[in-house]
C-alpha cells in the first residue's frame, strides 16, 4: 500500500523483513544524530583552522567530545518560557524544525551496488532490499514537501516567542525560504528532466557514468543554482539573515533556552548534512563510484560497503564547502538577497530548464543541434533583455515613490 519498501508488501510482525526495516530506521536515526554531533565539531574545527585559531581541543581527543559537553550543559540549563509567549506553539516549534531534517534521510540512497545499471539492491539475511529507508515513486517531491514544511518550525518559533526581534527574524526567514524554494524546485526539475524519474533510487541509478552525472548532464548551471538556493533554504551564511546577530540579537531563537535551543541548533546542522546528501544524490550520483585512472571503482576492495563510502566522501566535500562559505562570505543585505533570488536565480533556472527541454524535444524530433542551440540562446537573450528592461522601469518607479531600495 505505501510502497515504502518492497519488503513490507506482506507485512508480518516479528519476521526478518520487519527486523531489517527496523534496523534501517535505527541506523538512519543514530547515524543522523552522531553525524550532527561530528558536524558541529567539524565546522568549529575547520573554521578555527581557516581563521588561524585552534578551535575546540579540550574535551576528548582533538576536542571531539566538545559537542557532547555543550549538549549536556544545555540539558541542565533552566528551561525558560517567556511570559508573553504562546506556550503550546512555543513548545511545538523546535520539534517542527527538527523532524523534517531527519525525514529527508528516509529517501536518500545510502549505498548499494549501482554498477552496470543495477538498481542498488543488496541482500541482507537472504532478503533483497535497498540501502534506503523508503523509495516512494514521488521521492524528490517528498523532498520539496519536507523542505517547505521546515519553514513552520522557524516561523512559529519566532512568532510564539511574543517578542519583536524573533518575530522579525522569523518573518525574514519565511520570506527567504519561500523565495528560494522556487529556484530550488526549478533547478531540481532539470534533474528530473534529464534522469526521467522522480524516485531518488532511479535518479541515482541513471547516473551510472561520469558523463551522466546530473551535474554534467544538466550543464553545471542548475547545480550552481541548487547549491545557492539550498544555502538560502538552510539559512546558512552568507544567507543567515534569520539570525543576523548584529541586527536581531539572535533571530528567531532569541527567547529559547536549554534543550529547546539545542534542538534548533541540532536541526540547523542536521539540515546541512541532509542538504549535502541531497545535492550528492541529485547531482553527483550518490553512491555511484567515480572512475579514476581507468579503475571503475577504486574502492572495490571494500565490497558492498564501497557505495556508502563513496557517498560519505562526496557528502564530506559538500560539508566542507558549506563551512568554507561560512568562513569566507559576508552576509548579504536583505534587498540583495531578494534581488538575487527573484531577479536572477528564478529566471535563470526557468530559462535553463526551458533550454534543456528544447534540446530534448529537438533530439526526439531529429532537429539540427546547432540550430536548436542558436535559436534557444537567442530566445533566452531576448527574454533576459525584456526582464532587464522591466526591472529597470520598476526600479525607477520605486525611486519616484521614494522607497528605500
Amino acid at each position, binding site marked *: *500500500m*505505501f*510502497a515504502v519498501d518492497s519488503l513490507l508488501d506482506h*507485512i508480518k510482525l516479528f519476521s526478518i523483513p520487519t527486523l531489517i526495516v527496523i534496523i534501517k530506521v535505527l541506523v538512519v536515526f543514530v547515524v543522523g544524530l552522531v553525524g550532527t554531533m561530528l558536524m558541529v565539531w567539524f565546522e568549529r574545527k575547520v573554521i578555527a583552522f581557516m581563521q588561524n585559531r585552534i578551535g575546540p581541543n579540550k574535551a576528548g581527543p582533538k576536542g571531539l567530545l566538545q559537542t557532547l559537553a555543550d549538549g549536556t550543559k544545555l540539558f541542565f540549563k533552566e528551561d525558560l518560557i517567556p511570559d508573553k509567549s*504562546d506556550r*503550546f*506553539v512555543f513548545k511545538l516549534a523546535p520539534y517542527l524544525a527538527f523532524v523534517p531534517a531527519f525525514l529527508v534521510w528516509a529517501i536518500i540512497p545510502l549505498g548499494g551496488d549501482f554498477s552496470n545499471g543495477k538498481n542498488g539492491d543488496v541482500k541482507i539475511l537472504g532478503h533483497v532490499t535497498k540501502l534506503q529507508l523508503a523509495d*516512494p*515513486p*514521488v521521492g524528490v*517531491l*517528498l523532498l*520539496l*514537501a519536507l523542505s*517547505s*514544511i521546515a*519553514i*513552520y518550525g522557524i*516561523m*512559529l518559533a519566532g*512568532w510564539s516567542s511574543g517578542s519583536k526581534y524573533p*518575530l522579525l527574524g*522569523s*518573518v525574514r526567514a*519565511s*520570506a527567504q525560504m*519561500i523565495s528560494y*524554494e522556487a529556484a530550488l524546485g526549478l533547478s531540481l526539475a532539470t534533474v528530473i528532466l534529464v534522469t526521467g*524519474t*522522480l*524516485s531518488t533510487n*532511479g535518479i541515482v541509478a541513471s547516473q551510472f557514468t561520469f558523463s551522466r552525472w546530473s551535474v554534467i548532464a544538466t550543464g553545471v548551471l542548475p547545480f550552481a543554482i541548487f547549491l545557492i538556493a539550498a544555502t538560502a533554504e538552510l539559512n546558512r551564511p552568507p544567507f543567515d539573515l534569520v539570525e543576523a546577530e548584529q541586527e536581531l540579537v539572535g533571530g528567531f531563537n532569541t527567547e529559547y533556552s536549554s534543550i529547546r535551543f539545542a534542538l534548533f541548533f541540532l536541526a540547523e546542522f542536521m539540515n546541512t548534512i541532509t542538504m549535502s546528501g541531497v545535492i550528492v544524490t541529485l547531482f553527483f550520483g550518490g553512491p555511484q563510484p567515480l572512475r579514476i585512472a581507468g579503475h571503475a571503482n577504486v574502492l572495490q576492495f571494500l565490497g558492498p560497503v564501497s557505495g556508502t563510502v563513496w557517498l560519505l566522501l562526496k557528502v564530506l566535500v559538500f560539508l566542507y564547502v558549506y563551512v568554507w562559505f561560512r568562513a569566507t562570505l559576508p552576509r548579504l543585505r536583505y534587498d540583495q538577497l531578494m534581488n538575487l533570488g527573484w531577479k536572477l536565480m528564478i529566471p535563470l533556472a526557468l530559462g535553463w530548464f526551458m533550454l534543456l527541454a528544447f534540446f530534448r524535444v529537438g533530439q526526439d524530433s531529429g532537429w539540427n543541434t546547432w540550430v536548436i542551440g542558436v535559436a534557444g540562446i537567442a530566445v533566452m537573450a531576448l527574454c533576459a533583455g525584456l526582464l532587464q*528592461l522591466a526591472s*529597470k*522601469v520598476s526600479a*525607477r*518607479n520605486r525611486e*519616484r515613490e521614494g522607497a528605500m531600495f
Partner: protein
Amino acid sequence: MQLFVFIVAGAMVLGGAVGVVLRTHPVHAALSLVLTLFGIAVLFIAQDAQFLAAVEVIVYAGAIVVLFLFVIMLLGIDRAEDLHVEPFKIQRPAALVIGVGLVSLLGIAVIASREHPVPTVTPSQAVTDALADPHNGNIRALARDVFSDHVLAFELTSALLVIAVVATVILARKPRKGETYIVSGSAQ
C-alpha cells in the same frame, strides 16, 4: 492496516477541521488547518495517489497556509476576534443556509452513490499505457492526461494565474492622484 490508517488519518482530518472552526486564536486555527491537510495527504497515500499527497503538502501546507500565517503575523491580528460585532448583517444566516445545504448535498450524494454506482471514466490510450508501468505509473498517467487530453485547460489555468498575479500587483501599487507611471524604458 488499511482500516487503521483510515481511522487515524480521518481523526486527523476531522480533528483539524473542528479545530479550524472552534479555535478562537487565528494562528491556532491555521495550524489546525495544517493538521487537516496532512490527514488528507495520508489518505491520498493510502489510496496510492502519492503525487496528489506530495502536491497537497507542497502547495497547501507549504505555501498557502504559510501565507495565511504570514498575513496573520504581519497584520498583527494574532489575537481572538470579538464575536459580538457582526460586520455584515447577512453573513451568519447565509453561512447557516449554505452550511446546511452543503451537508445535505453531500449526504444525498453519499446515499445516492450507494444505489447507483459511479459511472466509470474511460481514459485515453496514452493514460492506459502509462498506468501499465508499475512503478511510476501514477505520475506518468497524470502527466499524460494533463499534458495531452487537457493541455488547453491546463495552459489556460496557468495564464489565468499569471493574470491574477499581475492584476494584484497593479491594484496594490495604484498610483496616487497626479502621479503617472513610467510605462516604457524610454519615457522620462
